[in-house]
């Protein structure tokens, strides 16, 4: 089933009787060449690129619940490539380029909208840091513009420029950044993978790994044993729990991050605006709701819900930045579980168990990475070598001293 404008018109004229489910619901086969554990954004993208770009066959995605039921359905939908460090920026820019061609690539409307992201700065030192980061972005082929106070005012006149503690002095703008429809991304990858023969198996929880002589031979699941040549784990949020079944401890703590959406309002916020100093960022969805968030709660959690102090903190940040939202009503608050790694950067690597691969540690930045994460993980699974943009995301980088710490706060996951 191919989506096109013509198709929409034809279905409209014939009573919408021709639409089919986007994917099959197959029974698990006894054996596969590749098993991806985790049917979220990264797992589905991995299966998609494994089948399409690398031409591999006999692939299954195992998901304990329904497809896209984890963080791909709980994030604030921002896509961007405004990182500083050489281990990160080329990877995220690769992801940004994949976003730009994604909808044509998988023939599905993911509502990719390059409405820009603006990071605000409040001091000379912060502006210097932004200039350096902008230059690092340009070197990696991304776009970046340093705005002064008046340029920011022209873009977003509603901001509070004269806040006593954090007066706005300028900002770093990436125009190619923006938002995407998070569920649409999962559905597009799922449909694309299914069309290429990948078995998407839902309600199938992995309960153990079968390892013979240091090599993976398959996975135990709630629907029986399934043999596999290679197994890739992409279950961010639960990585520690899943990898513990393979006897591994990870450089990861699970933390809860809350997100918020207001009632629908008239169009008012032009792109994504981040107020790092005040722990607040915001964009406006196409439906009109203000989608915003702030810091993680800061303690280990698997609860998928947070506590009130952080809600208050985020609301205070919002009021400090844009007092006009004070009368907007909050519609929903929810939480997702983040793999907070020890340096704030992810892991895409093989493990000490031969044939078992890990994609984890995405902190609260996994959504924007979805296409590149899937591509790089598929590359690793198919070729045994890391993708050129993901070669720094090694599991052993911590012990070797090659951490990728954008914030420079050390091995303290709740500060990343």
């Amino acid at each position, binding site marked *: 089933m191919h989506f096109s404008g013509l198709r929409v018109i034809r279905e409209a004229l014939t009573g919408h009787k021709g639409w089919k489910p986007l994917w099959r619901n197959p029974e698990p086969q006894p054996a596969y060449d590749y098993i991806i554990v985790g049917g979220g954004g990264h797992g589905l993208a991995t299966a998609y690129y494994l089948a399409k770009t690398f031409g591999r066959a006999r692939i299954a995605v195992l998901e304990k619940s329904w497809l896209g039921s984890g963080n791909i359905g709980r994030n604030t939908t921002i896509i961007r490539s405004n990182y500083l460090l050489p281990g990160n920026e080329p990877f995220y820019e690769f992801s940004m380029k994949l976003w730009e061609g994604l909808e044509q690539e998988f023939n599905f409307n993911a509502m990719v909208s390059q409405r820009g992201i603006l990071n605000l700065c409040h001091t000379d030192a912060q502006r210097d840091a932004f200039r350096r980061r902008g230059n690092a972005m340009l070197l990696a082929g991304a776009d970046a513009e340093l705005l002064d106070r008046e340029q920011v005012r022209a873009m977003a006149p509603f901001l509070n420029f004269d806040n006593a503690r954090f007066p706005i002095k300028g900002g770093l703008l990436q125009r190619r950044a923006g938002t995407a429809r998070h569920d649409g991304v999962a559905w597009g990858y799922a449909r694309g993978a299914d069309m290429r023969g990948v078995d998407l198996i839902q309600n199938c929880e992995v309960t153990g790994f079968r390892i013979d002589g240091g090599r993976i031979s398959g996975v135990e699941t709630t629907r029986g044993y399934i043999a596999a040549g290679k197994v890739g784990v992409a279950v961010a949020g*639960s990585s*520690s*729990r899943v990898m*513990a079944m393979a006897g591994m*401890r*990870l*450089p*990861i*703590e*699970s933390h809860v991050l809350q997100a918020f959406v207001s009632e629908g309002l008239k169009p008012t916020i032009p792109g994504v605006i981040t107020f790092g100093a005040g722990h607040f960022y915001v964009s406006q969805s196409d439906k009109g709701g203000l989608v915003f968030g702030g810091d993680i709660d*800061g*303690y*280990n*959690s*698997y*609860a998928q819900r947070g*506590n009130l*102090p952080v809600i208050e903190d985020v609301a205070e940040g919002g009021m400090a930045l844009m007092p006009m939202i004070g009368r907007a009503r909050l519609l929903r608050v929810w939480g997702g579980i983040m793999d907070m790694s*020890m340096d704030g950067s992810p892991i895409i690597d093989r493990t000490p168990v031969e044939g078992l691969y890990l994609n984890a540690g995405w902190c609260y930045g996994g959504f924007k990475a979805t296409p590149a994460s899937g591509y790089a993980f598929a590359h690793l699974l198919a070729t045994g070598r890391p993708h050129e943009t993901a070669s720094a995301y090694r599991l052993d980088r*911590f*012990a070797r001293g090659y951490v990728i710490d954008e914030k420079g706060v050390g*091995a*303290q*996951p*709740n500060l990343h």
Partner: protein
Amino acid sequence: MLIPHPLLGLRDAQEFTYLGDAALLNRPDGMAEGAEAAFAEYVYLRDNPAGVHRELWFHEQGDRSWLVVTRDTTTHEILGAELARDVKLKGGAA
């Protein structure tokens, strides 16, 4: 969340800052054989359980004591709190 401070009674978790797994009390011996690997593990690797977790909280805006709080990470229910000093003197957090 309210933390039952052993000396001060129930205190708002907002008064505390969070460090992490209470296993951090068991610092390896830097002079021992294999200390480098032991420290890499100590600094970077965590059990990160879903369920009962023993963890270090610092009463920063209170009496500045370190506590070992036992908490369920799946429900945020707090099951107990002790002074970290007492835990350490009893022989560690394991």
